[in-house]
């Protein structure tokens, strides 16, 4: 296994990257084709740059609205979850709490229950229980934002706990003795050190909220429709214009790929909750 040359790894990498990227490349190729070209012979090569599909999609008011909803929901959810998880994990890692282990266990267990289990009770709560006069949480952005907290918070707490434990306790004790308040310790001492972890947490929660389908499809109808549901409906509604569908899909992929570039270095430690270190 030692010094066997680097040819084999490179070949395997190429084949693997080809397989992983082929569907995405194909999507891109289709998004760059006119309607007429789409019915021609399939080809893996780009026939030229045709931006018509993107223009078409972005000029469609409905899709712009869906995209906007998705951006608001994912971003707010990511901010709330990251802040709450940051505060909670700081407390969890600094002080011993009675029943801390069972709390942790409970968090993980609940994250493991299929999302479908929570769907129906939440649907009933959103349409019948959580309402003030005419206002109900069903089909609102705030409803989705709060809901995604339930699925992202355990994940975020889990992820940040390992990172917080890794920050030496002596640092914030020293700051405390110098007269810093808890808030100052959090923002001036702990936050700068936890930055990479916080970035991974924020980006992954953003991704999960951005990509979520089941709840977005059932708990919204018009006002808070997100782009995932818009995409799924696209196929039936418009008699399926594949070029536009591909363009829209590429648009949903773009932020993910950009973020991926940022967190690439920390992602393994982040995704395995620190169990595997780089």
């Amino acid at each position, binding site marked *: 296994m030692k010094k066997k040359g680097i040819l084999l790894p490179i070949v395997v990498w190429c084949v693997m990257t080809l397989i992983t990227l*082929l569907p995405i490349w194909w999507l891109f190729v289709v998004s760059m084709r006119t309607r007429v070209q789409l019915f021609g012979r399939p080809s893996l090569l780009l026939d030229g740059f045709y931006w018509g599909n993107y223009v078409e999609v972005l000029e469609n008011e409905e899709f712009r609205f869906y995209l906007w909803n998705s951006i608001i929901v994912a971003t707010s959810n990511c901010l709330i979850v990251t802040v709450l998880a940051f505060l909670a994990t700081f407390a969890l890692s600094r002080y011993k709490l009675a029943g801390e282990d069972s709390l942790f266990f409970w968090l993980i267990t609940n994250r493991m229950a299929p999302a479908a289990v929570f769907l129906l009770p939440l649907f009933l709560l959103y349409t019948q229980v959580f309402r003030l006069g005419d206002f109900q949480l069903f089909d609102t952005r705030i409803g989705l934002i709060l809901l995604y907290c339930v699925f992202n918070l355990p994940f975020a707490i889990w992820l940040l706990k390992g990172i917080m434990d890794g920050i030496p306790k002596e640092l914030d004790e020293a700051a405390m003795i110098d007269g810093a308040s808890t808030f100052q310790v959090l923002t001036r001492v702990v936050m700068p050190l936890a930055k990479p972890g916080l970035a991974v947490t924020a980006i992954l929660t953003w991704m999960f909220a951005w990509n979520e389908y089941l709840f977005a499809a059932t708990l919204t109808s018009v006002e808070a429709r997100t782009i995932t549901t818009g995409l799924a409906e696209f196929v039936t509604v418009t008699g399926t214009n594949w070029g536009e569908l591909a363009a829209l899909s590429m648009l949903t992929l773009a932020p*993910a790929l950009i973020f991926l570039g940022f967190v690439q270095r920390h992602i393994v430690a982040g995704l395995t909750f620190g169990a595997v270190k780089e």
Partner: protein
Amino acid sequence: MAASLQGQGGTAVAGRGLAKKAWSRQRWTMLALIAPAVGVLLVWMIVPLAMTIYYAFHRYNVLYPERFGFAGFRNFSLLLNDPMFWGAMGKTLILVGASLIVTVVLGIILALVLEKDFPGRSIARLMALAPFFVMPVVAALVWKNMLMHPVYGLLSWILGTIGLPVVDWFQNWPMTAIVIIIAWQWTPFAMLVFLTSLQSMPEEQKEAAWLDGANAVQMFFKIILPHLSRAITAVVMIESIFFLSIFAEIFTTTGGGPGQATTTLSYIIYTRAFLEWNVGSASAGGLFAVILANIVAIFLIRLVARNMQNPEKFG
């Protein structure tokens, strides 16, 4: 770990003068910091769970609200006698099991081959992870309509060009097709975790094994696999969380069909709830899903916790 934290806290406080007062103030701060997170989880997780338990014992269909009443274990017995439910249970286990095996085995093989450093590796790594970030809905749509489509799909075009018979994936091999989509999204992730773990392995350990005359097979099972065990449990745990609740991939490709071929537990709960509006039955099914998740969780978390407590053993 927990015990050592307590010990540190205890000595630090006892060592200083104003011991008790500071300690209780800290405790309040700490509770205030945890409260928001716990509060959100409590309302949005415990309330639905309590409702699920409540409705599981009641007869309730949204379409016939007047027929509401206590039903005892009737929802459960109906469900347990329903072959569709057991079918869905089996399909869930097959889907989760097959996806886990494929991603982990492929991931290990790829990681072993790619362990070596070569030019352009960091870019290749980044690109390999791309499918992991694709929306499940998009992944499903692309695979179904642009790759596996029997007429327009790229795969059928390739198969046709080579001269092989064209396959209608979602008609004839629905479960395989879904596992392929999942494997496409998750294998790079598994591979990356294993690769990272392999790189942390001390070189001397491998050399010592070679010098002792170990062959490649012994090397793999005696040295590499034990070293990877922590990474494997981590991958299995994270993947099973996501695989157990897979929905978008099924909904957008097969819709549970053909027949019941891809109706999983998640999917059956969804149809009971939102097509039949049978709250009682859906809740009973939901409780079974929670129990199943708990069994998996207890089993896996014990495993991970044990591994994490002996890091020096697994490195």
